[in-house]
């Protein structure tokens, strides 16, 4: 019972602010790292610093990605460098690059749920 009480208070992980760029309008021809090759996105963003992580999720229902992805740099400075550059072009397509906003902290979720109404 105590465990269930603990469970109801949905634990949340403090969002450690990481230097992440959110990229939109990625052309379908480009992709992130796979086992076989580095990926255009990582290559492009490597010019601004060390890319720790580069994710472009694919939709397994369609076989295409959804045109957006996340680039995690090693430092804020590198992220800043990337954001400073006005145009990011991959395969002739201009990307939209912005800072990833920290996820909204969802705290005390259960306060109202417990009672339903």
């Amino acid at each position, binding site marked *: 019972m105590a465990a269930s009480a603990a469970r109801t208070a949905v634990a949340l992980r403090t969002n450690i602010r990481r230097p992440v760029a959110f990229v939109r309008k990625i*052309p379908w021809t480009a992709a992130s790292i796979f086992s076989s090759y580095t990926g255009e996105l990582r290559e492009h963003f490597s010019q601004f610093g060390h890319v720790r992580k580069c994710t472009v999720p694919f939709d397994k229902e369609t076989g295409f990605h959804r045109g957006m992805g996340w680039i995690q740099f090693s430092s804020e400075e590198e992220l800043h460098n990337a954001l400073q550059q006005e145009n990011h072009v991959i395969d002739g397509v201009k990307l939209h690059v912005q800072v990833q906003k920290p996820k909204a902290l969802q705290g005390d979720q259960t306060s109202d749920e417990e009672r339903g109404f």
Partner: protein
Amino acid sequence: MAALLRPARWLLRAGAAAHLPLSLRLLAGGPSRPHAAFCPHAARAGRVAGELLSQARLYAIAAEKKNYLQEEATSSHRRNTSQFDWALMRLDNSVRRTGRIPKTLLQKVFDNTCHSGSQGGNQALLLLRSCGSLLPELKLSERTEFAHRIWDKLQKLGTVYDVSHYNALLKVYLQNEYKFSPTDFLEKMEKANIQPNRVTYQRLIAAYCNMGDIEGASKILGFMKTKDLPVTEAVFSALVTGHARAGDMENAENILTVMKEAGIEPGPDTYLALLNAYAEKGDIDHVKQTLEKVEKSDLYLMDRDILQIIFSFSKAGYPQYVSEILEKITYERRYIPDTMNLILLLVTEKLEDTALQILLACPISREDSLSDFGSFFLRHCVTMNTPAEKLKDYCKKLKEAQMHTSPFQFTLHCALLAKNMDLAKALMKALKEEGFPIRTHYFWPLLVGHQKEKNVQGIVEVLKEMHEIGVTPDQETYINYVFPCFDSVKSVRAILQENGCLHEDSIFSQAELRIEAVNGNLDYILSFLESNTLPFSFASLRGSLILGFRRSMNINLWSKITELLYKDGRYCQEPPGPTEAVGYFLYNLIDSMSDSEVQAKEERLRQYFHQLMEMNVKIPENIYRGIRNLLDSCHVPELIKDVNMLVEREKTDSRKTAQPTSSDLESKLEKLKTENQPIGDVLKQLILMLCSEENMHKALELKAKYESDMVIGGYASLINLCCRHDNAEEALNLKREFDRLDSSAVLDTSKYVRLVKVLGKHGKLQDAINILKEMKEKDVLIKDATVLSFFHILNGAALRGETETVKQLHEAIVTLGLAKPSTALSSPLVTLYLEKDDLPTALEVTIDCYKKYKILPRIHDVLCKLIEKGETDLIQKAMDFVSQEQGEMTMLYDLFFAFLQTGNYKEAKKIIETPGIRARPTRLQWFCDRCIASNQVETLEKLVELTQKLFECDRDQLYYSLLKLYKVNGDWQRADAVWNKMQEENIIPRGRTLRLLAEILRNSNQEVPFDVPELWYEDEKHSLTSSPSPVEVSLQKELLNACHRKKDKDAFNIFLKAKKQNVVFNSETYAGLINLLLTKDNPTQAVQVKDFAETHIKGFTLNDAANSRLIIAQVRRDYLKAVHLEVG
């Protein structure tokens, strides 16, 4: 002279210009002409767009005004209006931007209208009007079919058509060159008791004229005459077309003279009719002459008119004249959408070459090298199956013209979306020739297509194609797109080998390994890694291995695999080396788990870390710090020391030579001290380092030694260290020293919270409260995470049974306003007594919380315990309180859930069958989610079972939750049983339910026994199958009419009458009536209708809107009868 000219002349003599009393007798004498070849007449496509919108806007305003006037203007009206506005806006935007409406958008708006529960005439009009030239991507016949579908469906749903709808339908017929009998059409209108108006006649004349049937047109003119209707320019323009199509150009020309004589100046429309007529004949000379004539007059042809002429030429087979006419176009910006519309229409008509010609002539600004124009053309070419050779040529030309930067890639995208393998193949070859790389993921959409159908042969073909073009499938290709097509991973290898498309064995093996890892098959992983001889990257396996670890609970295997990866020369040997790789692995493993998962697996993780330590596995210090932060945020800091054992210290020191070790710093400190130099900085650095090494003893020693040189930062870090080591005494001392140093200094929120936790834990309540007060005074930032930490502090104390700690800290937190009282935050107050099995006090505290804060923490758990112990009196007390404060329904649900939770299903059943109880979706969902979170399969199954007859229960939603739980457990058998149960219950599953079910089945390699819907639309499944009798039809019509006129009493009486005669209408009729009754605030009658419908139509359901309105109405009327309950 043609038949129509004669009466016209006659009329002129009579001197009547506006009203033309034509005699039927005269008209009848006209010769009948053979139908001319059927030629296009894409009735001024562009103009329609504007017309549609301006009219629709008028309707919107009209609808709003009507609302305003109606006294009982209810939300439903407003909803309709806003719904209509929404639809209008979507369509409007589309036409503005692109000159057209995509079919999918129209379908969406249509479905939405059907769903909305009440379909107004204006929505119907808007939809019908959109089915003509605004759909250039559809073949003419498909457009008309679409219009008919809309017409029939809306009629069935109770939309009452007026003459505007019939006219709109006529316009669509004209635009789509649909062949129909105008007389039949008139008859149809007559049957519906709709009076044709001038526009109707005009359009019917145009219909005859488009077929070159002058005689027919004359007949209609006759009708018009009997009605004394004026003949307008539109009629004359139609006659121009009519004569021309009848092959009589001379008379077509003559119409213009007749018009002038009748006092009507030929306008652009008439000239356009003439121009189109010449264009259809390929008569460029006359076209040019006429154009000159127009130019000389003060008339003005717009670009969209010129485009029309171009279409006529090309459709009639004279593309050679297109360029000459193109020169006349001024390319005003606002006509770009019209041009796009024409280009698409040409492609639909298989006149792609002309379409390209027009496209290339578009003056698109080429300054911004990154903007593309022409995608719409390429996409539509792919849809219309334009041959690959042609498309390649188009791409080349668009690129040369710098109109499109990547036409090949774009077209390939379209081809892949359309799963057109041959076209995709051709385009990829072309791309390769152009020097572009062909990437592995280009083939994925093709594989997806085959994978969905489990088409092994198709998969094999794509793989062969990849090989041919020189692309090697990577692991992702195998894992995500190839394996799911096969029943077992093992069979894949055999089949691929058999077909000669297994070229890179090592990639395949690794993919195989990853899928086994994901499935938690750790034995396989271990034996593979032991016997493997291939080069292999640990990083690529990391993600799958983490999933596998979390699925398997065999810690020995976890450790063995980790050890192997760490120590074996085949793995992790490249830089950055095994320490780093395993460190990251551990970090990611913990990071991938939820807080509660980490908490639940705390012991297992500890065991794992200890085994790793015994195996002498090391991780770098920086990664350790990351893991430490993770564990901290998961609220299991107790694991930190266990991970700390794995830190590789010596190596850190030797590698990072730039960073001095603690002993370096210490000697430096001594040196500075002896030299009498300031030591503050070095001291702080050293303290921080010792803190990160968790060396409390040494750090405190150092502090004592150099107390006078301590700074704020050093203290903060020391305080935190002592808290971590559970040393309340020292932490408090340090805090005091900290305050003495600078009373205004503020600690981080997390450090304050830690202090509170440690002080509370060691019974230093007043000190803890003082810290809380300080937080308030210094206005420390309280985040959601802070509130959560408060909860954990209180909860921890409650579990240890520290009553005073919980009470006082809670009181302080709430009174100080550091956090608002919530069910979660206050639950430890109750937990205290639940843990001690002191149920009366637990209940009292809960009730007390309600009195103080209007919350009822842990009432569910309290009830469960009361039931378990059979505390009848207390249950009664709880129930009395809840029903008094929150209503009986809430109380019933509380009791229901408690009985379910405690396995008292019989009692639960009794509760949920209480008369008058109805579904409360949020509460049901809350319980479902709870069951899913704690994996209570039986409880959830019982919930679903017992609520089967619950009033207004969203069965699909409950089954969806059940499926979610089955998915977690991978239990496809039970999921499959759900599919059957839903059919038994006559539930129509939503699309997402079917998709989830399909996913579960597919994950277990089971066949999916139904079409997985992309989107689910409510369709005519409810309507009656047998054809209704005339009595039924007339009664139903009466009822619909009454509903339409909002005569609720009449409508209800008709319903009663029909009921007496045992006449059953279709479900839409009942839905409409219920809607009306609800609008008129008549829920009792609405329920009566609903009950009848439910007992007479299988699977009758109200839509969501009506349902919620019914509930609202009933709640308002306090429909709920008091329910007496005995428990025990």
